[in-house]
């Protein structure tokens, strides 16, 4: 069980800011994205623009294998605009 956090455009499309999700301990970042899109199909429109932050480290959507622990934070990160 991981905590998924939504920000900016992704929070608008998903309609919420946070939820818990049950996922396999080991999966690729793309597979994790696909699980999230199943819950919130409108997120598919931003697939090309987002990355994840897993335990506060950026991860691109792709083949990278993630090893998740219960309670880990996974954040959906749309293109940033600080400063």
């Amino acid at each position, binding site marked *: 069980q991981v905590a998924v956090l939504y920000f900016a455009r992704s929070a608008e499309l998903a309609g919420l800011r946070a939820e818990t999700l049950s996922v396999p301990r080991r999966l690729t970042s793309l597979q994790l994205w696909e699980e999230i899109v199943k819950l919130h199909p409108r997120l598919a429109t931003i697939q090309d623009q987002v990355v994840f932050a897993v335990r506060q480290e950026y991860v691109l959507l792709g083949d990278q294998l993630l090893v998740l622990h219960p309670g880990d934070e996974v954040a959906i990160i749309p*293109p940033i605009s*600080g400063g």
Partner: protein
Amino acid sequence: MDESEEVPKDFIKLKSEKLSVDEVSELVISPYCGAVSLFIGTTRNNFEGKKVIHLEYEAYTSMAETEIKKICRDVRQKWPSVQHIAVHHRLGLVPITEASVIIAVSSPHRAESLEAVRFCINTLKASVPIWKKEIYEDEYSWKENKECFWANSEK
């Protein structure tokens, strides 16, 4: 009087209240430093012909603070003489002309603090999870920094 050098400090704050240039400069002032360099990011009132009413910022706060700490660490590696660094970023609603970000760096001589401030704002725009929404009269838009390393740059 303590003969050891002043301990270099990083002052990082994300807050919804109005930012203060005086407060941020005073944080970094040091008797060992002859230079304090400052960057202030303010909000423009127009974008592509549309009138901007105000800005709204949100952040992944815990990660934003961690990323800013990494920037401070990188600054100190590149410019070891840098004394103090302060980065204050505003969150929530920011009216036009008010500051969204203030960065101040002190160093004994001016070259390092000037370069360090530039590096801070450029790297902040590329890596810190903060988002800006521009509110216009009839619509709004989530902005995207061109520095963002994963954004689709063909748009």
